[in-house]
């Protein structure tokens, strides 16, 4: 029972985020965003950029573990 609590919240949260994301894209189609660089003015650019950056950071971080990760008592030895 208790375990379901967090899962339900997560479900609501996911739905909420998807709704907001959709809404933001719709708004982007209806207005013209002024930006400092043309690249950023492409419809949905910040969205795609944000998504890719996030995935990139996590995946690269994961692989960096191979180089940078040591045991917890590494410096104590």
């Amino acid at each position, binding site marked *: 029972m208790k375990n379901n609590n967090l899962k339900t919240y997560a479900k609501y949260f996911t739905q909420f985020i998807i709704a907001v994301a959709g809404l933001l894209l719709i708004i982007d189609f209806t*207005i013209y965003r*002024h930006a400092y660089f043309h690249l*950023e003015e492409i419809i949905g650019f910040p969205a795609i950029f944000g998504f890719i950056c996030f995935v990139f950071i996590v995946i690269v971080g*994961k692989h960096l573990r191979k180089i940078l*990760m040591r045991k917890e008592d590494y410096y104590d030895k």
Partner: protein
Amino acid sequence: MTSSMIPGLWMIIASMLLPVIPNYFRQPAMLLSVFLSSLSLLNGFGTFLTWEILGFNLTLYHSDNLTLPFAIIFHLASLLVIIYGWHNKNLMENMATLAYAGSAIGALHAGDFFSLFIWWEATALTSVFIVLAGNTVSARNSAMRYLIIQVCSGVLLLIGASMMVYQTGNHELTKLDLSSNFGVFIFLAFGIKAAFPFLNGWLQDSYPESSPTGTVALSAFTTKLAIYALARTFPGTETLIWIGAIMTAFPVFFAVIENDLRRVLSFSLNNQLGFMVVGIGIGTELSLNGTVAHAFVHIIYKALLFMSMGAVLHRVGTTKASELGGLYKYMPLTTIFCIIGAMSISAFPLFSGFVAKSLIMSALGGQGLILIYFVLFFASAGVLEHSGIKIPYFAFFAHERKTKVKEAPINMLIAMGVAAFLCIGIGVYPKYLYSILPYSVNYQPYTIDHVISQLQLLVFAILAFLFLVKFKLYPSEIKSTVLNSDWFYRKMLPGIGKPLFQTLQKIIIKFYEVLSILFDLILGRSKKFANLSYIKVTTPGFAGLLMITILFIMLVLAVI
């Protein structure tokens, strides 16, 4: 009386009086001293106190448009730290915290490099006791490393300042550049405290070792003092743009894999400093305003995040992500405050990070620096990852928790509440923040372009997070140590140095042995000389020899 009293000095005097003040009045006395010191904020701009000594004219109390915003936020941070640590009965830590905050405030008002140096060292010496108050073996070791690095910074500053006086006859805190050799020394001194890439190891090493209250105090002052000093002496130095951009980007990857959440926040602190350094590097009025505004709001939300993690540490006893989770049920208020801090640092519209970061981004855009602009844009997604999502997610959610814990003590909640209120207040009414910035601004952060752009970035990054969690691609937390630039002096140098010195020592011992045989041959039976125990190689003797050799080499180099 207050008018010529150096701001912050009240706090240092109070810290010295703390041992004779009864336990229950210590925190009120600390608050009172901060209040007395803060009266100096009403003094306005100008030079209020100079001291002529040994032919030098020291400007001890100078205030202008760059000092004021930093002085305000330093006083505010002191108040938050004291309220947050109201339950703290550790006398040494209380004294150190108050003196540390006082020294940092004093440093802001120094008008020349020598007075700055004195305060610079004062912040180092006082803050090392805060790290020591972590009261573990690793905290003690970390404190010693911290002290060495901080003193290095001070020594570099002193060398730079002395060379400057020698070469120019001037030691006032003015704009410098990197074409002069003393400029480079001073730049490095500031760079250590501002945690430039590869000079940053001390920050992530020591901050997470301190006590829950100690880390909050540490996070506010040292690095922002360095930012202030850089903004005063090196505005418009192009190198800083690149250094800052690297600073925003690289800690992001470390923060993803770090397990200790307070260390994650230290990486995040490093990344935030990068934004400010970029602002200094651009050097326009808009970008310097951005730097100051960012330092101002950053101190509040970073303190808030450290406070929430401190509350977790206080109640649960650890901030390791692998051992936390599900605290939302037991610490609901801390959870809410932490999320407010997380949203501020991620720069959600209507939160304080947004109104400050926009200034720097606009300055970058205005200068047409497209590469740096997108590096910072990328780093914004990174901030969301480690501070916006990772911190609240692993501490308060992730999975259900079996053992019960209590909500944070009331004083911690009050401090967090005030900080959270300020985060939202500044985000909703940025004009009050803008009115204290060094240059007058006519800037509107809430344009539809800005808001939509930023929201798209953040919301789709959250979507990416949900996507990664859903498909089990998000790395789980593992108990580990993540190597950082402190590895160079914690592992590499001892790794090379120890065998090297041991060989050297062996050679010297061999040399003495040969010498003694020669003596023996020459002096024959004279036991007094043949027994050369008095020139045996001892460790202090060896260290002394090394020091003398290094000094001799330096002397030779100086003569050349």
